[in-house]
């Protein structure tokens, strides 16, 4: 029985791994194909079944005058906007979440749980509902088509995620740890920064990962709030589309755009699974 169990376990793990890896392998192979290789039926092995070409990749880095889209600028714009908005969201979100977890707020019938829900409700609404208010808001501030405007909007979108994850995290951190720090001689701020925060790194990493993912993949707001001066990667990639879908360069662009997320997930996962940060309390 244990052998059968081990066999089944590995069988399903391998099956799942194939299921996850297959689209990536497909995209990698497609990115090195040309029009004829893509439309001439399914082929898998380079040099044997099709002749690999770098055409799909070179389009991504050529300037527009040479028929390319040059994603380098938008790529760094996306990194800058996502990281800045995520960082600010984590900092503000963590502070808000700590307050919501540890202090009692009451205004009429509104209590802590309601305030937490107000944060999350930002994500419940369909993005299109927010598009016009955001447009008018950025327009009045003169921040349309700017990195600062996008960062502002992304903070609004990402902070609920940070607050939501961190409130839950802090709720599971025993109050005794704060109280012990107070007894040991910290004031409430020192207790938070010296004791609670270092122990909250796992939660912040998870919240950060989610913020980066949601910030990085956003197309909708990047599309409606920017025009020509500033462009983010998802918007730029859509510009590749024409009457004939260029699957090869779209595949290359997909791989380039997903790479940072894989790196971030890989780093965060390593920290979490090491166990030197998770479960640091008690």
């Amino acid at each position, binding site marked *: 029985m244990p052998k059968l169990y081990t066999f089944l376990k590995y069988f399903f793990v391998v099956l799942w791994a194939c299921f996850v890896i297959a689209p990536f392998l497909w995209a990698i192979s497609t990115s090195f194909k040309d029009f004829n290789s893509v439309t001439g039926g399914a082929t898998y092995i380079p040099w044997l079944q099709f002749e690999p070409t770098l055409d799909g990749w070179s389009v991504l880095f050529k300037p527009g005058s040479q028929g390319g889209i040059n994603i380098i600028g938008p790529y760094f714009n996306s990194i800058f906007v996502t990281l800045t908005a995520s960082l600010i969201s984590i900092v503000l979100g963590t502070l808000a979440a700590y307050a919501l977890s540890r202090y009692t707020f009451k205004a009429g019938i509104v209590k802590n749980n309601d305030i937490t829900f107000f944060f999350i409700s930002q994500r419940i609404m369909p993005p299109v509902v927010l598009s016009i208010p955001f447009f008018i808001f950025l327009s009045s501030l003169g921040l349309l088509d700017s990195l600062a405007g996008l960062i502002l909007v992304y903070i609004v979108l990402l902070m609920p995620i940070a607050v939501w994850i961190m409130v839950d995290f802090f709720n599971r951190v*025993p109050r*005794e*740890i704060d*109280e*012990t720090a*107070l*007894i*040991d*001689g*910290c*004031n409430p701020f*020192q207790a938070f920064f010296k*004791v609670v925060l*270092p*122990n909250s*790194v796992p939660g912040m990493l998870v919240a950060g990962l989610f913020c980066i993912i949601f910030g990085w993949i956003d197309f909708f707001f990047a599309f409606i709030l920017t025009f020509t001066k500033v462009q983010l990667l998802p918007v730029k990639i859509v510009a590749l589309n024409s009457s004939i879908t260029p699957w090869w360069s779209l595949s290359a662009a997909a791989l380039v755009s997903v790479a940072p997320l894989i790196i971030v997930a890989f780093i965060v996962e390593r920290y979490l699974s090491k166990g*030197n*940060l998770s*479960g*640091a*309390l*008690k």
Partner: protein
Amino acid sequence: MAKIILENIAHTYEPNASNPIFALKEMSLSWADGGRYALLGPSGCGKTTMLNIMSGLVNPSHGKVFFDERDVTSMITEERNIAQVFQFPVIYGTMTVFENLAFPLKCRQFPEDQIERKVKEVAEILNLQDYLNNRAKGLTADQKQLISLGRGLVREDVAAILMDEPLTVIDPDLKFRLRRKLKEINDKYKTTLIYVTHDQNEAMTFADNIIVMDQGEVVQAGSPKDLFERPQTTFVGYFIGSPAMNLYECSASSKNEISIGVNSFKVQTNINNSKSENLKLGIRSEYITVENEYSDNSLEADVIEVEDFGNYKLITASFDSFKIKAKVKRELDIPSEKVILKLPAEHCCIYEDNKLI
């Protein structure tokens, strides 16, 4: 170090309720500087609330807290310079054992050499000297609790060390050694120790003074001997001692005599002035003796069970509709059916409305 005085303290966790329930009912209490106290009572009786009021984690709804002459009621925890150890180990997981023990001293900006000396001294007392450079998170539950305890001990100038059932997670042998260690620390540094527990044996063996609490009230404060021999309420009689005190409803027959059913017993308490119908006789099972023949204050009971505990025997018997327990020497031969038990008058406590008279 300081004398701690609680003056007319009361606390409710629902101050805005029209009819609030008080976790701690109004009381005044003082804790002598350098004393070794146990706060004993069932779960939910207000022990932890009282500790938290002393440490400043809870602001009392009523009353004042004094450290010596100083009113500290509105003072925040960090300014009170008090140490508190919780029931479950609280460690700073990202720090080493050394950093954990040094933390209270660093927060108060002690010089580095003094911190190192003190941390090593405390680590030695607690047998943690080999783990000083280890991450605190990787240690066992009892080692973690030792760290919590150690953080309380590194400061010599604390007003008091408050311990909220601190040895729950520690194995019995180490528990015994630690209690002895705490006593030594108390003798050596004259630090006031207040030890919360619901385990009477722990309280009896640790403290010079025991404060028994029930339903938010202090029901008796005194030495282990006082609590055992003269419980001030039936609750204390029942709560302290194993087995619990034998308690029977009774009626006054004369000035120094009471009746339980058809049996009469002489007592040393003057019960002439008693007006209440609610009279009870209480006697510890340790003071009941087995006799060969009838005499004053003896009764015949049917033996239900005799349990041999190795160092003593516990007889459970019944008379009329009452049960009685007697703790006797192991060597004694106990008849299997009927036994004559004597309730010595000097050990009979009489309670009126559950209070000793």
